[in-house]
């Protein structure tokens, strides 16, 4: 699979290296003297929090950025990539989080699209399809080269991206957080393929912030923090565990809050109940199909599933932002009107949407304005039609203090860090002392410390008696926090499990549309 023009000095130990790479953007040094080596035949993890410089480093390695200082070496030779095309020539490819596939074309067509391996020759469909099928088989990636992309699942599309790179002569494959869109099973399958590639002498760079994945899959790990290498380890020889990696990543010990499931919830009446609720997408396709769920006061119900399986619709239907087409939602035993967000909020429902900046917060307004986004109608915040600035600011300062938000009341929400913005949102919603709290992907994109404070805020709210419906794509998070787990797939609830002793494999089967019988477990 060598492409014409790829460097021939493969006998060198290092395929791709960075030496003292430095890259600054206005206001931030993204990479500061980074050294990095991706060896032949290894899976090398690049670990770090958001903003630690992982992606910048990889964009430098693939010619998207040029370093301010330092060098990139391929096969021991210094190279100066001026574009991704140069990096392709050198056999370095990156699979981004957002795929670049033409959804109306077939797998084989996408693989050769825009690529001239043999200049001037016509596209030989059959030959390409055969080659793609052979490569897929070789790396254990089940894919039909004739399949149309739009019919494929996200996991399958990712495989097409990888095949595309291999077909074009990739010797070094960089994957940017590839598992964030996969079910546990799909991730497992991906790991098999990646190990196979390493065994064949390719090198794989695996960007992640999930520690368990790194320890399970990778041979070596390089940890970045604030743009510098904060540690590295050879996982084949040293005994570095997840805790040790976390320390390198964050710079201190962290212990995630977990739910202690000792406190019995009793037989209290559910605070939130959904009965046979259905809803549709804007273009008319089914989004939710006869969903039945209930959450009791003080309970956290985790909704697990691969993103895009109806989670958004579920949250929006409960919050009143989307009309339901059938079924009932009851809050505290009273039916909730369909498609009326104000009624839901007035009845004690708080909602932290997945789309924080834009739905949950108005990014162009100040923190103070956002703190009263729903409360602006309250009598005590003003007189008659007028709002009192003084009282709004007083309330804002109180919230900022109670939830440890770094930022002033007058700063624009847009200027806050992701973690602080999410804290503002949670602070506002929880301070309304809701009976029911719906949170969607509460920690996505946050750094580890922010993630931890969000988690403890949620646990505290549950301890205070709120019924929490937590939608998350992070199964580990659900297993840590939830009392029960409802698994959603294609808009249907596949099953509800007790979180205690739940097996991720079972959950994975449900996430892919299997039933509880398939997992061999009786419903609780």
């Amino acid at each position: 699979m060598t492409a014409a023009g790829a460097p021939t000095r493969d006998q060198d130990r290092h395929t791709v290296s960075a030496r003292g790479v430095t890259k600054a953007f206005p206001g931030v040094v993204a990479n500061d003297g980074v050294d990095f080596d991706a060896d032949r035949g290894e899976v090398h993890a690049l670990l770090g929090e958001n903003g630690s410089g992982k992606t910048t480093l990889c964009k430098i390695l693939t010619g998207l950025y040029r370093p301010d200082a330092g060098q990139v070496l391929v096969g021991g030779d210094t190279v100066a990539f001026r574009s991704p095309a140069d990096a392709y020539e050198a056999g370095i490819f990156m699979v981004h989080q957002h795929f670049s596939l033409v959804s109306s074309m077939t797998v084989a067509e996408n693989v050769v699209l825009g690529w001239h391996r043999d200049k001037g020759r016509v596209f030989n469909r059959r030959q390409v399809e055969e080659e793609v099928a052979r490569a897929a088989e070789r790396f254990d990636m089940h894919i039909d080269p004739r399949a149309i992309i739009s019919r494929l699942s996200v996991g399958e599309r990712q495989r097409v991206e990888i095949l595309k790179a291999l077909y074009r002569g990739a010797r070094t494959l960089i994957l940017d957080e590839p598992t964030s869109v996969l079910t546990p099973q799909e991730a497992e399958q991906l790991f098999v393929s990646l190990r196979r590639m390493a065994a064949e002498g390719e090198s794989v760079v695996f960007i992640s912030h999930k520690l368990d994945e790194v320890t399970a899959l990778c041979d070596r790990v390089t940890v970045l923090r604030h743009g510098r290498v904060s540690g590295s380890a050879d996982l084949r020889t040293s005994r570095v565990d997840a805790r040790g990696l976390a320390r390198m990543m964050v710079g201190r010990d962290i212990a995630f809050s977990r739910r202690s499931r000792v406190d019995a919830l009793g037989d209290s009446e559910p605070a939130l109940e959904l009965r046979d609720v259905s809803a549709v997408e804007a273009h008319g396709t089914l989004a939710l199909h006869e969903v039945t769920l209930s959450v009791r006061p003080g309970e956290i119900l985790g909704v697990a599933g691969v993103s895009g399986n109806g989670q958004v619709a579920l949250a929006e239907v409960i919050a009143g932002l989307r009309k339901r087409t059938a079924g009932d939602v009851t809050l505290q035993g009273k039916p909730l009107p369909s498609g009326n967000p104000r009624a839901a909020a007035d009845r004690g429902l708080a909602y932290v949407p997945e789309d924080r900046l834009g739905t949950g917060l108005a990014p162009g307004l100040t923190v103070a304005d956002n703190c009263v986004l729903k409360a602006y109608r309250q009598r005590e915040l003003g007189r008659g039609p007028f709002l009192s600035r003084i009282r709004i600011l007083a309330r804002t300062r109180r919230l900022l203090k109670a939830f440890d938000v770094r930022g002033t009341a007058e700063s624009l929400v847009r200027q806050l860090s992701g973690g602080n913005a999410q804290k503002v949102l949670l602070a506002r919603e929880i301070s309304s002392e809701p009976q029911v709290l719906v949170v969607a992907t509460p920690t996505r994109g946050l750094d580890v410390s922010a993630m931890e404070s969000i988690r403890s805020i949620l646990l505290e709210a549950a301890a205070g008696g709120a019924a929490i419906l937590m939608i998350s794509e992070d199964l580990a998070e659900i297993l840590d926090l939830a009392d029960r787990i409802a698994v959603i797939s294609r808009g249907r609830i596949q099953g509800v499990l007790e979180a205690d002793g739940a097996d991720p494999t079972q959950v994975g089967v449900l996430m892919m549309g299997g039933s509880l019988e398939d997992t061999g477990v009786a419903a609780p």
Partner: protein
Amino acid sequence: MLRLPEIHFEKRLKPPRWLGPAMPPIAVLAALIIGGLILWASGRDPIDIYQRMVRVSFTNPGALSATLVAATPLVLTGLAAAITFRMKVWNIGADGQLMIGAVFASAAGIALDEQGLAVSMTVMIIAGMVGGGLWAAIPALLRVYLNTSEVLTTLMLNYIAPLILFYLIFSTTSYWRDLTTEGARVFPRGKTILEGAFWPEYGGGVVVPFGFILGIVLAVLLTVVVRSTRFGFQMRVSADSPTAGRYAGIRTARLLVLVMVLSGAVAGIAGASQIGDFSHRLEPKILQFAVFGYTGIAVAALVRYHPLGVVVSAILVGALSNAGLALQGPELPLGLIGVNQGLILLLVAASEVSARYKVVVGRRPRTGHGAQQAGGDLDGGPAEEPASGGVS
């Protein structure tokens, strides 16, 4: 091959606070300099022409009066545009709303008996607001119920409104048509409103139309409403993010109708002012050719839809058009004045971008195919080259 320097935009991480408000004046200044160069290149003395422009627009009572008269409808239509454009609701129908407002206000003015000036003015203003508001309610309701684009519907209503005016005056013996004299029957015209309902003018030597004062009051009022009321809070939230507005429980459809009707009502006041301040009767031709509504959009855009700024920019635009009319002649064609006006609008609009982006002029070595679009994200602009160009 000759390589031209590349110009690229780099997003400012933190635009300085003063930059936003400072941009429009800087842009006006730059436009005057460029306009001056054009005048100079065409063999005229820019300093002399600018001096004359100031003279015919500001520095004698008569000139200043003419400027304020020109600015009066623009303040009001500018406010009408500012109200909706801030919320990304594109009401470009101020022209039609103004005309229907004028129809209602003149009807009120004709029907009035000697009630005293305060009462008759109030009645005319309210009538104008009702007319403009109703005309704006049509596209608002169409948008809410049928999801039609208000850009198209308000635009189309701008064509219908003058037809109604012409019908009332030229095609029928309607209530608005003057049939008292032989001349008026042959050359149709509108009935003159009650003389006791003519709007007053203020000032000694300088004429300040009442409508202009009304515009200033409205601008202050709107500023207060947007900044400090619960209704204004809803407007600000929905303007920033309609989805966040819906999430916050704001009844967005109702808010949209209210804002459109409010905007139409302000345009309707402009119509009432045309009758009460100036023409004192329905003049279809004058109203149709004046295009106060469209100019009002430019007036509002110049100051980024800020109500108080509208007053200032209306005077500026009023002065410019006034100067154009006063200065035009064989040695100074109206086109050259138009060039200056256009430059001001263009540069102020462009200054909006410069406030948020840095303009970097410099040569970046050409990169291979794909690199430009893939690596060209604004937060990761080129750091490898010193900016040889400055900030515009």
